[in-house]
């Protein structure tokens, strides 16, 4: 029963992701595109929850949906008028984009579907507890990630300063 419910939810999320992704790149109103992106991100978070990575799902929701999307919305509101539609894309450009996208999707999809390398079920190891995550993040042993963590933090600091430098009025 749980299995079936999981599958239903999975297909629901998949439908949301596919439809909203396509809508996000084809909508001519930029604010709507951002909204569709928000839905995609939420659905992605749903995937993570389904895969029992609850922490990652929470991170996805807070950082992506809560942080980045808000930035996007601010930027959109600063740079375009409400209700403004972007110019129609020239058919030539659209044709090239479609060709690249469809050809890529076809090759990758065909390759994926003709090769069987996935177990249909993952081992139900339950969710990762925070302690494991915390240790892995702060440890200095093999398969532990203190150094990347610190590097990321320095990167974020640099980004803060850089962002201020770039965006401030002169």
């Amino acid at each position, binding site marked *: 029963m749980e299995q079936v419910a999981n599958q239903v939810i999975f297909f629901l999320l998949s439908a949301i992701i596919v439809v909203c992704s396509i809508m996000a790149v084809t909508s001519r109103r930029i604010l709507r595109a951002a909204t569709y992106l928000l839905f995609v991100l939420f659905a992605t978070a749903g995937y993570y929850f389904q895969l029992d990575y609850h922490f990652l799902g929470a991170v996805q929701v807070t950082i992506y949906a809560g942080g980045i999307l808000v930035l996007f919305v601010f930027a959109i509101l600063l740079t375009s008028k409400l209700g403004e539609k972007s110019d129609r894309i020239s058919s030539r*450009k659209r044709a*090239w*984009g479609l*060709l*690249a996208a469809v*050809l*890529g999707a076809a*090759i990758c999809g065909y*390759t994926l579907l003709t090769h069987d390398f996935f177990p249909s079920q993952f081992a139900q190891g339950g969710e990762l507890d925070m302690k494991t995550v915390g240790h892995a993040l702060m440890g200095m042993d093999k398969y532990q990630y203190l150094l990347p963590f610190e590097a990321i933090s320095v990167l974020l600091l640099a980004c803060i300063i850089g962002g201020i430098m770039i965006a401030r009025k002169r």
Partner: protein
Amino acid sequence: MEYSYIILLLPMLMFITLGLCGHKMSHRTAGLLGTSGLFIITILSYIVAAQYFMQPRVDGIYPTVTPYHFEWLRFTEWLHIDLGIMLDPISVMMLVVITTVSSMVHLYSLGYMHGEVGFQRYYAFLSLFTFSMLGLVVATNIFQMYIFWELVGVSSYLLIGFYYTRQSAVAASKKAFIVTRFADLGFLLGILLLSYYTKTFDFATLTSGDVSLVGTTEGKTFLGISVASWAMALVFMGGAGKSAMFPLHIWLPDAMEGPTPVSALIHAATMVVAGVFLVARLFPVYVTTPEVLTFITVIGAVTALYAAVVACVQTDIKRVLAFSTISQIAFMMVALGVTTEMNGHGALGYMASMFHLFTHAMFKALLFLGAGAIIHAVHSNEMSEMGGLRKYMPITHITFLIACLAIAGIPPFSGFFSKDEILAAAFEKSAFWGVWMSLVAGLTAFYMFRLYFNIFWGKEAHHEHTPHEAPKTMSIPLVFLALVTCFAGFIPFGHFVTASGLSYTIHLNWTVAATSICIAVVAIALATWLYMKPNDKPARMAESLSSLHRWAYHRFYIDEVYMFVTHKIIFRYISTPIAWFDRHVVDGTMNLMATLTQSASYHIRGLQSGRLQSYAVVFLLGAMIIAAIVLYCI
């Protein structure tokens, strides 16, 4: 003679100085600088002449001296071009003539060109001309002569076109340059033929008799005429172009568009006799090809008659003088043409020709300078605007009369002696040429006095302001040249310049002399009767000979024939197709290549748009293709 190089160097320095710094000088400084330089080289050339003719004769002739000579360009064993200074009787005589006339013209121009725009440029060009003319006459070899020959052509071009804002002056300068260039093509071909067979450019070698053109071209003919004759005729063609021989004379009347002193210097006294000088310089070679000498005689005689007839009806005084110049140069050519040998009686013509060159330079310069003074006074070239000027311009009147008497051949003026020698030489050759040239001499006297009476006598034209005598700077040269004209005839010319170099005493052939004087007097009397008092006789005469008058007035339509040949035939049937071919086939090929390259790059340009998105598409498609190949084809 050690300082003879200064004669050549000084005018060149003057040209460089005036040409480069002239615009910073005042008119006065530039004029005085040019004139004083010219006087210095005049004195130097007199000294050189005195030294040269004072030196002892060797075997009865004056030795040829080459004070400077160096090899300039060596190509092969015998083909090398040298530069140097060669002094022999004719080049020394030419030095004297050129520097004298040139210094007089320089002095005269101070007054004549006073206040003109481009005064410094004028003096710079005059110096350039003097330099190149002097270089021409002292050339040691035919190639050096050719170089300076072209330089005088260029300076003549520059001076004819001095008033470059005037359309007619520009056209005249172009015409002069193109016609003489065309003739110089023949000259160059002649030089090549001559030096190919004789293996030398050197005048001394060519004229010494060591190499014989006729000998080396033995048996070689082209179109039935021997190669030796071809070579000498082609060289003569160059001379004919410079000396305005029929039918290459058309540029000279138009060249009168230049300032009058320039006409006096270049187009009367010095440059136009370069052709005569050239033939004289190579005369020992010409003597070996008698058919070319006959050719020269015929050309000269035809030109003399033609120019004299045309001069009789022209109304522009400078044109009358221009045709008179053509006619007189033709006299010199005829004199050279009738010379049959280097020594003895047959060589009289050579001496007569050089003598006439000398006297003609003086009196024709005088005539032109006088005409310049008249034009200066009445501001017009047309005879109808003049008349009765003798009261206002006494000095010009007297000097002009002296020159007219000289050119008409009245003793004791210089023209009589030299022209008489020419007539004697012509009679020596054959009675036909003698009678012909006597007739032309009569015509000369007639048209000169027609000019004289129309200017100084006849009906007094209405002048806007009273004509006045020219300033001192202009009248001094007139007086000086008039004095020379009076006394130059008594120079024992045969003592200095003869074909072989041996001294030759001139004996007046009194039969010939008396005939020529009679003819001249009759012609003058006719002119007096027709033109001295205002009357309608000239008009009636023109009426009765209307067709001849019209033809002569339009110079027998020679210019129109040239125009027809060049425009209607050459331009239309040769130049136009060539131009078409050039424009459509030659240019077309280039344009096609350019268009192909351009369109190819235009289309390729799209790839380098700089748009990141296009790059991304291409990159992705490429990646996909590689992925597909790697996954499914390998």
